[in-house]
């Protein structure tokens, strides 16, 4: 049943929202359509988790989410220098991409209870979730080589910025204004750099030691 629902969201609802939104709201309301799509694309992961997760997995995801939110709260004074993406990547490396997606998207929901919920919440959920999901595919090479880890953490920072700026432009203009997008990217360049830098710093410092802890837990409790 849940599987059916998740297929429906993917193959029916998302195109329906896109096409329907474009037809009904001729007034260039792409921002809201993208928002709905971002939210809908999280649903299959949530449903799969709801259906499949055992207690151990559930608790692990809760702990990793709390840690990444805690990191975001601790680093509030330094703008954009946040360990959230790093935690999402570490989770994905050791518990798989799906756990990474969940930790990313749940961290966005929870931390925004402090930092303010808004129309950007679904985009953050989606962006951090996606960073985690992709990290899951690259987990083996990232564990083996530091260079891959550094490259991915830079890419994650840059793509986070790219994705959130799509939202900025759609929100401000109602349609995808390429010149504003480029302007937004340029003005966000320092932030992008800090995102990437914070990812690299946190991953270089924490990936190995936290990885050791997670490996040990996995062996000890047969995860």
């Amino acid at each position, binding site marked *: 049943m849940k599987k059916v629902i998740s297929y429906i969201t993917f193959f029916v609802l998302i195109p329906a929202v896109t096409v329907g939104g474009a037809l009904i*709201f001729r*007034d260039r*309301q792409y921002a*809201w359509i993208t928002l709905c799509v971002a939210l809908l694309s999280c649903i299959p992961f*949530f*449903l799969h*988790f*709801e259906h499949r*997760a*055992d*207690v*151990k997995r*559930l*608790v*692990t*995801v*809760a*702990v990793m*989410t*709390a*840690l990444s*939110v*805690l990191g975001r*709260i601790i680093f509030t004074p330094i703008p954009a220098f946040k360990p959230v993406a790093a935690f999402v990547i570490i989770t994905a490396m050791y518990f798989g991409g799906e756990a990474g997606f*969940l930790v990313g998207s*749940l961290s966005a*929901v*929870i931390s*925004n*209870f402090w930092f*303010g*919920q*808004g*129309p950007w919440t679904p985009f953050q959920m989606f962006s951090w979730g996606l960073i985690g999901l992709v990290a899951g595919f690259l987990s083996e090479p990232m564990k083996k080589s530091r260079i891959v880890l550094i490259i991915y953490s830079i890419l994650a920072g840059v793509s986070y910025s790219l994705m959130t700026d799509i939202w900025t432009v759609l*929100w*401000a*203009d*109602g349609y995808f*204004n390429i*010149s*504003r997008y480029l*302007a937004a990217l340029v003005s966000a360049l320092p932030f992008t750099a800090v995102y990437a830098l914070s990812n690299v710093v946190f991953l270089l*410092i*924490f990936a190995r*030691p*936290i990885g050791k*802890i*997670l490996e*040990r*837990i996995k062996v*000890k*409790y047969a995860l």
Partner: protein
Amino acid sequence: MKAFGSFHPAVLLTYFVAIIGIFMFASNPVMRVTALLGGILFCLLLQKKREIPGNLGFYIPLFLLVAVTNPLFSHAGVTPLFFLNGNPVTLEASVYGVFLAVTVIGVMMWCKCYSEIMTGDKFLYLFGSIVPKLSLTLSMAFRFLPLFVRRMKTVTTARRGLGLYSQRGFVDRIKGTGQVFLSVISWSLENAMETSMSMRARAYGKAKRTSFSLFRFTMRDGVMIFVTLLLFALTVTGMASGATDFFFYPRIGELSLSPLAVTAYSSFAILAFLPFVIEVRGALLWRYYISRI
């Protein structure tokens, strides 16, 4: 002062979905400005007094930024005001910029009110029955936050007791904090694993679980949800018939004042100012009761 917040979570969610939903899709200046005003008034009541100046310092520049940048990036429209670097700055784009700024700030205002009113417990209560595991995960994560902060303090104190501390500069302190953090991670994970085993021993996930909550759906909630849905329906009817359509490009359109459009405007205005009125009424009642003691 949260008279509005005392409604049932389902009522509150319906209200916020209705107002933000209309706000998103109604491209009509009257409705957007009404919603912005309603949002600002509601927000003023919910905020702590000392937070207000800081917020003004954030939202007013943002408003100006959005309003000013639109005509610089968008050259649509037929009435050029002046030329900048060979590109026309048009009247339409400038007006649309102000409209966008109203939208952006308005949505932010309503989301701020949403965050104030829909606290974590209400959110979890609503979704607990639909996605029980996911909401359990969320509520555990919420609970872990203060717990982890406390554990970090405990570990720091213990390390200090062992003589493992340093004030020899920044790098050393960071290193120390990192070590505390790592030990809290492993402590918390081990602890969480024990929690999970204990949950499994109590047959978690084998049957449907009940949960405790203080929320009850009363007559008052029923009336409120009916009023919300009625106003929502009236507004949406106006919008769907096209009476409230408004165009900025290529030339600024005329505002429709047909009966249908006026009904939509006024019912949306009532909807937007409803929380403000309820809050003020609650505050006045409270004053009155206090004066009787």
